[in-house]
């Protein structure tokens, strides 16, 4: 939901689409809470995923619209966009049933995954558009540091794998290293630059 409503110029159709997207999110959330800790039937999970997915796609379109108009923020803050709705949709669509997952649900999950990758691209585009010179230097420097830290961890795991010792590389290890390194570098650079 946008907080700067007064400044946001949307057409009537845009507002209607946004209302539909937010409504779908709320409906899916209520359905999820009502389901509780039960796995739920594939149809119910598919419907919940659809609700989150619609909200995610509307958000993505809105992000794209804002990215095209974006300018550097006067307060110097850095905006990182993150599509929660699409992650929730993916979570709802990936139940592992004992008797196997229906093919249509797997196909739907793959579509959500594709949209997630696209939303990452749009998020990066928005970030690049809303930066001034200093912000750009901060983001590039911190991302470069995070990249090297992550690569070092992956190489250590590659070594362990080649020697047949130690644990296997899990995606979560890469994410944790990347996130910690990035935020730490951003924090330090913000104070120094």
């Amino acid at each position, binding site marked *: 939901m946008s907080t700067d409503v007064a400044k946001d110029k949307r057409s009537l159709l845009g507002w209607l689409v946004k209302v539909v997207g937010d409504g779908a999110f709320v409906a899916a959330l209520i359905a999820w809470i009502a389901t509780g800790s039960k796995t739920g039937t594939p149809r119910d999970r598919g419907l919940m995923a659809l609700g989150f997915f619609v909200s995610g796609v509307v958000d993505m379109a809105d992000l794209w619209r804002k990215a095209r108009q974006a300018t550097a923020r006067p307060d110097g803050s850095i905006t990182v966009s993150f599509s929660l709705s699409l992650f929730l949709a993916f979570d709802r669509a990936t139940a592992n049933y004992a008797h196997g997952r229906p093919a249509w649900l797997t196909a739907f999950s*793959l579509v959500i995954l594709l949209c*997630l990758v696209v939303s*990452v691209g749009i998020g990066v585009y928005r970030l690049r558009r809303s930066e001034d010179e200093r912000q750009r230097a901060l983001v590039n420097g911190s991302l470069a540091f995070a990249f090297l830290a*992550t*690569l070092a961890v992956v*190489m250590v795991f590659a070594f362990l794998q080649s020697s047949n010792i130690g644990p296997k590389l899990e*995606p979560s290890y890469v994410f944790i290293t990347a996130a910690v390194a990035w935020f730490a570098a951003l924090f330090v650079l913000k104070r120094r630059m």
Partner: protein
Amino acid sequence: MKAKIRDFWAEDRLIFILLTGAVVVGLAAMVGFLVPQKNRDAASYTGIATIIVAGYAAGWARAVRSRARTGEKRSRGTASLGKNVLRFVSEYAFLAGLAAYAWESGNGHDSLIRLAGAICFLMWSGAEIASARSSKGSALSRNRRHVPVGVAALAGLAMAFELTTPQPHRSQPAWLTALGIVLVVGLIATTPYAVIEWIRRSDERESLIANRSLAFAFIVTMTLVLTFSLLEALKVGPSLRPDYVIATATTSWFGAWFVLQRRM
């Protein structure tokens, strides 16, 4: 915009068509369209290799054509024999390594070809480093852009390591695995050295290119890891392996560096 597209079409039509064809064939091979189900794994590697080799060949063809158009001649005769050998190795060893990689990906598992490919990548690395150091400030260096020492070392080691990693469902001799261990130790040891040297020696423009290319590589690598992580949750496709991450990181970094070097 239209004028740019028209110019591009007039200048690079042939290369564009060839590259698009290679990408289509590569993608078709990757999804197993042209091969039976049992060879699907090999097909995906062949697809990746086809696209890489085609991209390299297209860039090469473009450079040759551009040289022919401007009438620029290669100054092989003015350089010493050693420098000519270095230049030859740095131009063709990488291509030979890629060819070995493509061959190995599509035709099973020959350890000697993998070893030869790894040696080619290491030779390319060594030649690039030696060439950059020996021709600093000379006429030769003005005629040609060198890959930074750190990038050459890391890219060569990473590609050689990629060729020595054990493939799923295939056996591998112990000596090749041992070579892989040596290469990954080399990679770990070289990374801080390469980065420090690159940052210390680079000027304002170079450090901007370094940071931007590393940032781009980070985003591409994270997107790959995110995709694999979610595919794993779906139980679709292979699980994440360190060599996938290293290959993606290296390729995207090198690609971004190459593009930025030309554009900035």
